């Protein structure tokens, strides 16, 4: 797994996509989570908070603690993911696969307040395949203490050729 090291800076990037997920934002800036991240050598915490209402207190980290910053939206979070050493994301499939395809360690946090929570199916399946860790807001600290990022398996992007081949065959195009 790649490490986004840059002058000793190790960034944890948190994203909630276009949703509102205050429970995750609050969990990430809670004392024990920040301490665990700091213990593991992370220096910066950047939160993309989407439509959330709760704004976490910013911190410049001058006293040696974790530096905390946030923003609501960005047209593309790819650059933030690329510069991160760890990504903590909501369970949206777009955010998950964007992070996995960029080869970054990922913890997916499932939003228990959502009515139809089919999102956790995807996160749990990918966790079983050892591509990421899956947690709930209240268990995020526990996941952080137990995680072994070196044991994660790199995700291999998929290939649409089988779909195209089946469609071509059905429509009567000759096989190449």
């Amino acid at each position, binding site marked *: 797994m790649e490490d986004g090291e840059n002058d000793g800076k190790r960034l944890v990037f948190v994203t909630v996509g276009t949703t509102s997920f205050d429970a995750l934002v609050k969990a990430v800036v809670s004392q024990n989570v920040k301490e665990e991240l700091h213990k593991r050598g992370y220096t910066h915490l950047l939160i993309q908070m989407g439509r959330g209402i709760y704004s976490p207190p910013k911190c410049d980290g001058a006293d040696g603690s974790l530096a905390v910053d946030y923003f609501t939206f960005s047209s593309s979070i790819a650059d933030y993911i690329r510069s991160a050493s760890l990504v903590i994301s909501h369970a949206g*499939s777009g955010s998950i*696969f964007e992070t*996995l*395809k960029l080869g970054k360690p990922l913890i997916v946090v499932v939003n228990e307040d959502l*009515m139809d929570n*089919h*999102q956790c*199916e*995807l996160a749990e*399946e990918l966790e079983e395949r050892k591509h990421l860790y899956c947690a709930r807001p209240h268990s995020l600290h526990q996941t952080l203490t137990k995680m072994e990022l070196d044991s994660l398996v790199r995700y291999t*992007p*998929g*290939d*649409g050729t*089988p*779909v195209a081949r*089946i*469609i071509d065959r*059905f*429509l009567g195009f000759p096989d190449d």
Partner: protein
Amino acid sequence: MMRRELPHDDGETTPLLHLLEDVTSVWTTIVAIVHALWLMIRIRPQVILCNGPGTCIPLCVIAFLFKVLGIRWSSIFYVESVARVKKLFLSGLLLYNLRMADQFFVQWPQLQKNYPRAHYVGCLM
């Protein structure tokens, strides 16, 4: 094409608001069907390729009805969303059970076990 916003439960709506939401749902569904019909006639697509959300249903229903009436303009191909691991979306269930899709694709092996007429093509992301 026009998209019908699904009402979501935020725990604060009253019965009257629920009724209003249902009425607007019916109306926007009718608008979506009429729009789909117009698109079908104007574009006459040979292939309709869709993935997941209910926005594809009006178009697929129109294309299927045309086929039933002998107007074979469009083949319908449905690729279930990668977010669906164990169960199909409602739109997928409709297209699979009513046999409206000409070819049906799923991205996880668990779905292929439950829906044997589907092609398992692996995770496409």
